């Protein structure tokens, strides 16, 4: 009889588990193979994970020193934060982990249940999941009471871990088809901004003194969060009684239900068509924009393109939104601070910080162009073209930042109590912006790095370029700070008339920066091109 001998037999559960764990470990190993910088980067990640795990475990166990109810409150909040973090972080970092996308596995002869077990195991493997598990386990030392509490504690920690895993799987799987489309990713990239904002929240609360008594605030928050699933896990552990057992039973059921939902979503995701080929949006290309006002040529081309990118590229949008948001928060919280300095400093300080924030974005001017920069490279034949290119980028950024800083100056001076202060604030911040452009032009050509297409909240550079990115932004910050001292310092100390000089000074530094960057940048254009075209 003629037949096909496939020579394979179906995998058992334990085999599947082992297979996926090995796959994940291989992927991690493959990521760091070859490249020394990647290896070093990964070693640092490992050290960081061990450090965080140890510190977290210690911190959680030290909660024991606090009064029992306070300890429970802290535990409840900590568990909820882990839970939310685990659900959100993989989304923002989608693509960091190859085992996350079920579509890559859809051609293998695996049953959905096997796939689910495998993906579950794979997502529990790795330094960070283990670190979180260890930190969570610290809670057993931290606030479990009696033998019952410890037993419940172990169960609670495991359930909390499982809950985090299945929830994050459910979230990524249900959104995975959206995440594979261009629009979905664009949307998510902009959503990363909310994480930035969220990080500012505690700062805001403390600065504005909204809470009054922190312990009372903690208790209030914990009282609400106690009824969330992760809150229940923490509560069960601290409680150690029959209520705790009931809570854990509920959690176990919940894990199974979410697990089932996830399997369902997985089944759907594997057979649903990819939505990424949907028709694209149509733009009005015959722009009547600002480029029309400029003399025809390179400068107009670069300005027009940069302004479009600030609006259309998610990275551009995120950059500008982040600057606006952080500056706004800063102004708001500084103004609410009754004890600090008073006078024009209150208006000028935030405006200058805003200018610095915006200016630092130009510290890697070619990063966003990335792999498309060759188009400029084949067109530019002289240092002059390079200078014009940088001037175009500066002009475009100034067109957005100028009015923004003016508005910020007016707002902060209103907060500070005297509208007249907005004039020196505006002038000084514009000057500072110019200085940061000049420095940024130089760092852009000396420390260029690739800005990843898929922006996430954790890395701002392509794998292996973290060090250069750090040097670049640090250099830009130090350089801008040092070079702007001559005008900013006297103005901050009350010699406000000196702010008249800020704008011409800033423009001079920007011009000098472009001059230097043009010479350096043109000479090493191929290297620059290679540095911003790294795979991400």
């Amino acid at each position: 009889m003629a037949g096909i001998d496939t020579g394979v037999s179906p995998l058992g559960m334990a085999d599947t588990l082992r297979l996926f764990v090995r796959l994940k470990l291989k992927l991690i190993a493959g990521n760091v193979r070859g490249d020394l910088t990647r290896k070093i980067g990964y070693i640092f990640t490992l050290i960081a994970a061990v450090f965080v795990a140890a510190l977290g475990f210690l911190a959680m166990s030290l909660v024991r020193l606090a009064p029992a109810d306070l300890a429970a409150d802290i535990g409840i909040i900590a568990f909820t934060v882990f839970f939310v973090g685990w659900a959100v972080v993989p989304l923002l970092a989608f693509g960091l982990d190859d085992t996350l996308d079920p579509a890559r596995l859809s051609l293998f002869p695996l049953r959905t249940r096997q796939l689910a077990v495998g993906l579950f195991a794979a997502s529990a493997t790795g330094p960070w999941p283990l670190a979180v598990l260890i930190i969570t386990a610290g809670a057993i030392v931290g606030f479990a009471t009696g033998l019952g509490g410890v037993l419940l504690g172990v169960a609670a920690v495991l359930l909390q871990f499982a809950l985090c895993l299945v929830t994050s799987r459910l979230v990524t799987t249900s959104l995975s088809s959206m995440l594979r489309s261009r629009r979905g990713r664009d949307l998510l990239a902009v959503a990363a901004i909310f994480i930035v904002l969220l990080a500012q929240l505690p700062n805001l609360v403390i600065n504005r003194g909204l809470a009054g008594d922190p312990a009372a605030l903690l208790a209030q928050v914990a009282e609400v969060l106690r009824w969330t699933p992760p809150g229940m896990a923490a509560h069960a552990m601290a409680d150690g009684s029959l209520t705790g057992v009931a809570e854990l039973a509920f959690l176990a059921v919940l894990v199974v239900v979410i697990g089932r939902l996830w399997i369902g979503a997985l089944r759907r995701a594997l057979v649903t068509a990819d939505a990424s080929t949907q028709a694209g949006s149509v733009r009005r290309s015959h722009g009547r924009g600002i480029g029309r006002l400029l003399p025809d040529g390179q400068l107009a081309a670069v300005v027009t393109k940069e302004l479009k990118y600030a609006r259309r590229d998610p990275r551009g949008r995120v950059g500008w939104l982040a600057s606006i948001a952080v500056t706004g928060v800063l102004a708001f919280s500084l103004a609410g601070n009754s004890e600090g300095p008073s006078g024009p400093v209150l208006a000028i300080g935030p405006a200058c910080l805003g200018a610095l924030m915006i200016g630092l974005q130009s510290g890697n001017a070619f990063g966003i162009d990335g792999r498309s920069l060759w188009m400029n490279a084949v067109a530019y034949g002289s240092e002059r073209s390079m200078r014009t290119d940088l001037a175009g980028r500066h002009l475009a950024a100034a067109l957005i930042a100028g009015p923004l800083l003016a508005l910020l100056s007016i707002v902060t001076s209103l907060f500070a109590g005297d509208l007249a202060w907005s004039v020196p604030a505006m002038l000084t911040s514009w000057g500072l912006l110019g200085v940061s452009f000049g420095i940024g032009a130089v760092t852009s050509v000396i420390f260029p790095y690739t800005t990843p297409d898929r922006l996430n909240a954790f890395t701002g550079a392509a794998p292996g370029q973290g060090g250069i990115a750090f040097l670049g932004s640090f250099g830009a910050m130090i350089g801008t700070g040092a070079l702007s001292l001559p005008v900013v310092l006297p103005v901050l100390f009350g010699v406000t008339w000196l702010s008249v000089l800020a704008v011409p000074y800033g423009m001079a530094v920007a011009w000098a920066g472009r001059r230097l960057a043009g010479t350096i940048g043109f000479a090493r254009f191929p290297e620059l091109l290679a540095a911003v075209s790294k795979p991400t």
Partner: protein
Amino acid sequence: MVDSVRTQGLFKRFGQQVAVAGVDLVVPRGSFAGLVGPNGAGKTTTLSMATGLLRPDGGSAEIDGLNVWRDPIAVKARIGVLPEGLRLFERLSGRELLSYNGQLRGIPKAEVERRAEELLKVMDLLDSADKLVVDYSTGMRKKIGLAAALLHNPNVLFLDEPFEGVDPVSANTLEEVLRRYTASGSTVVFSSHVMDLVERLCDWVSVMSRGQIVAQGPIGEVRGERSLNQAFLDLVGASGGGGDEEGLSWLGSTQA
């Protein structure tokens, strides 16, 4: 007559690996030249170095007798490039991409718009001209890339794998545009590993293997009596092991 492209001892190493080991590429003016070779032969690296996008570790490259690295202004005005991959400004529409390109090269805006409109029409991209490039298909991206490379009317056009992943209709459009372009006396250099295509389009061929040119000349000479494909396989020293008895014995239906 000066050759359009002439490189001498072009050399490039990435870490331990020598990607291009002394390439003497010659392309006479007005030819439709194919640069062929297996994957990893160094085609892309050679083209990148000849167009000034990658700095060679040794050797020189000349376009129309002008040194690529010493005379960049004159060289860059003479060449049009479509590099490997589809690296374009994704967030511009096709039309915007063309006008950005033209303006960067100092062509007056009105002229850029006139040329862009004609190119879009020839490339059959008018309907998608206002869509963002990020939403373009592979064929559309190759076509808009070629349009951008042609916009300043270069003397020499370098195309890295222009037909890869392109549907037959778009490929036909690309072919027609390129034929018209070379018929006027301009030069095209393109890399490919599709021998049939090279055989049909080119009058000049350079064969690369392991970082070196192993044969170069008018296509008839290189090919001899064989098909180009056979000549290529002989030149790069491919061993025909596909028909051997040993190995792969489990493949195919088994007789019981």
